């Protein structure tokens, strides 16, 4: 019998916990926590937005570190590369969600969907950079070649992002424009609000771990499928060969 999933008892526990805590966060965010004194009800978006953003950054840090280890091991073990890829996939999705929920919140709080402030701009470039990273990973090639190429892109992104951030900070600092509303999202929170936000971070971290485990196993599966397919193809080619000799 073949095991028809990438799940294990550990991932099931992680998944269950993630669902449970997410449920609590949703209930608390909508019905239990009060509206913020400055932001009003729009603070309820924050309970989704902040954990999402946290995961997005965590994902790219994970990708960078895993790529570094992959290079250090000279791509002999593909595990690091698979984790790097899975983490980037999840990170790109979370980054997109961060940008969307962030601009919805911004519309309510600032009155605009987008502001060219350093944090937003850097996040946008981070997003585009990792979309490119995933495009490189999608090119069908030998897994070790894939690891070698994509790790270079990931490590160059580590160089790129601070430069982007620094230049955007410098750029915006030259424009003395008053903010629409003098808040950047770092609001003062009471105990329950903080606890909800913290639960959200925990829940989304568990979701992230669950997704990365499963998605890196997917890559393992497709790499293994390549190996299994090659075995069959070698046997076929050799058989054809001996048949040709006897004929």
């Amino acid at each position, binding site marked *: 019998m073949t095991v028809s999933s990438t799940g294990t008892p550990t991932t099931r526990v992680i998944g269950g916990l993630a669902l449970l805590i997410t449920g609590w966060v949703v209930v608390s965010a909508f019905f239990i926590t009060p509206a913020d004194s400055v932001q009003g009800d729009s603070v309820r978006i924050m309970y989704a937005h902040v954990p999402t953003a946290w995961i997005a950054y965590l994902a790219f840090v994970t990708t960078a570190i895993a790529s570094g280890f992959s290079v250090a091991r000279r791509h002999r073990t593909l595990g690091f590369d698979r984790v790097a890829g899975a983490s980037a996939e999840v990170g790109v999705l979370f980054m997109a969600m961060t940008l969307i929920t962030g601009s919805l919140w911004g519309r309510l709080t600032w009155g605009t969907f987008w502001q060219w402030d350093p944090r937003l701009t850097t996040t946008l470039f981070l997003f585009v950079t990792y979309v490119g990273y995933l495009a490189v990973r999608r090119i*069908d090639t*030998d897994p*070790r*070649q894939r690891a070698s190429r994509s790790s270079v892109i990931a490590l160059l992104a580590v160089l790129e992002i601070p430069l982007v951030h620094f230049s955007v900070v410098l750029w915006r600092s030259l424009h003395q424009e008053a903010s629409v509303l003098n808040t950047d999202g770092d609001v003062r929170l009471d105990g329950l609000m903080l606890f909800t936000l913290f639960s959200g971070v925990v829940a989304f971290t568990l979701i992230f771990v669950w997704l990365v485990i499963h998605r890196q196993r997917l890559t393992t599966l497709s790499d293994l499928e*390549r190996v299994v*397919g*090659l075995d069959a*193809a*070698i046997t076929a*080619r*050799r058989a*054809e*060969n*001996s048949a*040709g*000799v006897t004929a």
Partner: protein
Amino acid sequence: MTSVAGDTAIRLADAVVALGGFPALAGASMSVERGELVALRGANGTGKSTLLRLCAGLVPLARGGATVLGVDLADDRVAVRQLVGLLGHRNGLYAELTCRENVAFTAQLVGASPNDVDDALQRLGIDARVAVTRAGALSAGQRRRTALASLIVRRAQLWLLDEPHAGLDTAARNELDVILRDATRSGATVLYTTHEVDRAGLATPRTVTLSGGCVTSDVSSKFGVAQ
């Protein structure tokens, strides 16, 4: 340049190379000593070119073992690049440079002198008029000769030639045979592919035949193989 590998230039043990999932080499085993001249024979699509590209470090080894000039290809296939001269299907020439400029560029990179360039051109029968013609405007045979001249200038330890005789006229073919034997005499190892039986038999002391991505026969003879 000396290597720690001893006397073995190429050692393949059940080497498998997969190109887009297809096992172009499906477990080839062979061993070539330094200074040997070996012809690779086989029909189209039997893995001759892939075997050469594997030895040149251009394609990854999927299974088995492959050591070329002391470099383990499973571990680091880039390291072998510098020791090996490959003449593949494509000539590796710049179409906008003249024949002589192409060879001279190679010479500059490896630190050979302009005299070496002239010698190489002369040996391959490239005259002054052809030498100043853009590579893109040359005939297929002339481009082949230019690429061979570059290879001579490089003085690689292992020569890997894919159909080097194809497109050459009789005089050039005979001269090529002399060049290859000279190369082995000066310590280089030469592995070339051909599907011409007589050439493989007469000019070469050893003929390895590929079929279905595997080595199916390996014949050594001082007098050539009667077919």
